[in-house]
């Protein structure tokens, strides 16, 4: 049943120009970012004396910065992907179709999460040409690439869960998208708040609740149990809230 629901959502994405516009824009912007990072890196290398070139790390200056920028792009792209998933159903009163069928709320939420993730993966797939460039300059660290893609994918899952919840509480797509953007920004700001707080315990709590520290660790390939628990809890909590929000709307 989840496959039927997932397929319908994926078909809906790819039968409208939105998916292609998003994939195209994402490829273009991420391409420009990658190119700029490469140019900055090579300019930096050329400006240094030959013995000092190793002080500028390609991984630090290009690879990690590129994926950090991809994460930044998600701030705009993921709310655009998730905004209509429930709000459009609420506006068109099509949710009745599911409440009249034996489908359970969680199956609907899971299938929409998977469909949104499928579109994000399609966008990330295009960035697959960049590892080829990296391969060309002699960086063949597949572990690093794997963890970088895993890190942005985990963040994408968290943002999708948050975006779906925002979509479930509003019948207006624009409001749903704005709430998602604010929600993601809030997740980033909590970490900054943690850095600014002088109290050690409060600082640690803020840093754990915020997504940035988990993303940075994942990006560097040091994904720990606490990060896995964080992402799993985050997605579960927001999916649960979405299920409850749909149930409450029904009541």
């Amino acid at each position, binding site marked *: 049943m989840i496959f039927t629901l997932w397929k319908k959502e994926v078909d809906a994405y790819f039968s409208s120009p939105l998916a292609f516009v998003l994939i195209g824009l994402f490829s273009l912007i991420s391409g420009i970012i990658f190119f700029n990072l490469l140019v900055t890196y090579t300019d930096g290398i050329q400006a240094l004396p030959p013995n000092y070139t190793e002080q500028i790390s390609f991984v630090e200056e290009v690879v990690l910065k590129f994926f950090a920028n991809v994460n930044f792009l998600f701030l705009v792209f993921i709310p655009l992907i998730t905004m209509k998933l429930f709000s459009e159903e609420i506006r068109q009163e099509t949710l009745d179709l599911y409440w*009249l069928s034996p489908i359970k709320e969680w199956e609907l939420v899971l299938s929409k999460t998977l469909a949104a993730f499928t579109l994000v993966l399609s966008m990330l797939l295009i960035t697959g040409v960049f590892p080829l460039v990296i391969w060309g300059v002699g960086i063949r660290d597949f572990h690093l690439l794997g963890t970088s893609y895993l890190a942005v994918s985990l963040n994408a899952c968290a943002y999708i869960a948050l975006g779906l919840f925002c979509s479930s509480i509003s019948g207006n797509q624009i409001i749903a998208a704005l709430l998602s953007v604010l929600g993601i920004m809030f997740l980033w700001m909590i970490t900054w708040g943690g850095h600014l707080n002088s109290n050690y315990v409060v600082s640690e709590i803020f840093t754990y609740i915020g997504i940035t520290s988990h993303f940075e660790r994942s990006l560097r390939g040091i994904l720990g149990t606490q990060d896995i628990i964080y992402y799993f809890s985050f997605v579960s909590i927001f999916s649960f809230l979405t299920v409850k929000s749909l149930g409450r709307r029904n009541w």
Partner: protein
Amino acid sequence: MDKILVVDRVCKEYPGRVAVSEASFAVAKGSIHGFLGPNGAGKSTTMKMIAGILPTSAGEIKLFGQTVSPENRELKNQLGLLPENAPLYPDMKVETYLQYVAKLHGVSKAKDQVNKVMEELHLTEVRARLIGNLSKGFKQRVGLAQAIVYDAPFLILDEPTNGLDPQTVFELRDFIKKLSIDKTILFSSHVLSEVEQLCNDITIIHKGKIRASGNLQDIHRKFRQGLVIKIGLGLGEKLPDLGSFGKFEVTHHSSLSMEEQFILNFESESDIRSDLGRFILDRGLKLMTLHVESPELEDIFLHMTETKK
């Protein structure tokens, strides 16, 4: 007759507002049950509660002997609903949409079933078109198709012919009649003549309260108080003194092109037509018309919903 649906003292309350209050009625197996009421009377709310997509605040609804609730998934394939706004995806093709609905309900041969339903509702010619591009009439047919595509034995149709052209109304009405051969239908409409044509039983709801429920003929009988007789006399003729026939009231008088028409409401229900005819003729008056008027459903509806404000 077996009662498929029993609505027992059902209430629906929203903060600061009671949408449905102590509603009780039953729907017999194999019937088309008309559900009438003005806008905002609580029809759609009641229908959604029966469909199990809106929980009740109090009371109980039993369908096929099982209590209806949003959590009772056993009943989901037993009931088809065409809400006031059909749940349609404008960016899906008709055939794809119907197959999707059939799959949601676990129909094993979804393709065959969809073909059959599309043929019955004359949707085959638009099967490959996007729902959003269809006319209102076709959209309503697709809405009806989604309610019957999984062959549920009980259907709830909320104003299925509202706002459609006469040809489509006629076709849909005919189709609903055919459906009632092996299905039970709860049907709401604003067109009272349509309800009279299609339904054997009716329920009238007003301001969230059930005003009348039961067999249409019984309701007619209950509503009729005394005897209403329409008399046509020659042009310019006046009504003689009919005091000997008991207490009565002239509820209507109009001068038509051929006759003077009077509608008399007698308190007594005994049939006085022959005596009344003879009485008028004996007085040298011309008797053009004389017949008993039965109350129209419209009269009953207006009486139930307007005079009880």
